[in-house]
């Protein structure tokens, strides 16, 4: 090897080594059927990606994964004061699933907690506006109201409400007693 070749060899080694810090090496990520992801380039979202193998340049590009399987919510034995001063004891189960990966990812620091947060807030709010007689006789209507409001709020965070039902709903003694 001539002198020029040696110099060229070392400069190539140097170039590749130094350059990879700023460009990175291609690596692949495989998303499973129940996962979704957002492809980022230089820190900015470029597109959503679905299941399958995806190539990224490590360093400058990134894929953030989101689990799209339904999130189950269960609350039992909670108390809420009603509009007439009585107290109701309620419990419910619900499930929700991510429909819009990007919306869900940006909606909260812990996106998997959104369904529990939203349904609990809505149930508490709906029951707090209801009277004891409505809690005793209009449980289906109350559940429908909760579903309607929850669906609307969850949609704005990229989720879809799959199911909701009260497992327990009864009135107790007034809270001030």
């Amino acid at each position, binding site marked *: 090897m001539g002198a020029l070749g040696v110099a060229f060899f*070392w400069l190539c080694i140097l170039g590749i080594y130094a350059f990879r810090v700023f460009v990175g090496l291609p690596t692949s990520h495989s998303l499973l059927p129940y996962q979704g992801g957002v492809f980022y380039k230089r*820190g900015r979202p470029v597109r959503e990606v679905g299941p399958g193998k995806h190539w990224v340049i490590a360093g400058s590009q990134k894929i953030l994964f989101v689990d799209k399987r339904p999130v189950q919510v269960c609350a039992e034995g909670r108390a*809420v004061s009603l509009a007439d001063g009585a107290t109701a004891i309620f419990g419910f189960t619900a499930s929700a699933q991510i429909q819009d990966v990007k919306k869900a990812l940006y909606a909260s620091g812990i996106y998997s907690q959104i369904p529990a947060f939203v349904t609990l*807030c809505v149930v508490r709010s709906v029951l*707090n506006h209801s009277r004891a007689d409505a809690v005793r006789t209009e449980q289906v209507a109350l559940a429908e109201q909760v579903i309607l409001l929850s669906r609307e709020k969850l949609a704005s965070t990229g989720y879809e409400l799959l199911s909701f039902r009260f497992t327990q709903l009864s009135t107790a003694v007034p809270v001030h007693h």
Partner: protein
Amino acid sequence: MSDAVAGLFTIIGVLLAWSAFLYVRMTKTVYITDYQAGVKFRHGIFSRVLGPGFYRTRSGNAPINVVDMRPHQFLFERLTYQDALQSDSLISIAGSVIVSDPYLAVTSFKDIETDPITVAKDGLRVAIARTMADPSEQGRERIASGLTAELNRELRKRGVELRDLEVTELWTEVTDPYSVERAN
């Protein structure tokens, strides 16, 4: 090209490659997405806030603290208190905390996800006692906006703020709506 020049090139190449090797070994890549911010320090002094992108930094002398700027939701359930009229009351409040100033937040809170919520709850207990427990729709909105304004005055000094505060439950022993009206 003579052997001497080639030798010189080789030495320079080896030195540069070694420098690059050391640079890679002594630094690490920090990736910041568009919902994050990076607070960079240099030799113990705040340097700047970094936007989305990827950065190489020396973790010892120039650490970058990555801050999540997404909202963190909270729900305070059934807090009992006495309102401004000394009426026994009960309230549930939902809302979210977001980082408004990454540098202040990093230097004020050890855990940016949970500590601001604890501080907010603490402030809420004090502030709520100065409000009128009015369960009407307008009353709830007034309480939420009043609490937001009052708590944010303190929280903004620490680089975080409350958003979307909502009174999800409110009960008070005052049953005569006119007494609330008179007090307001």
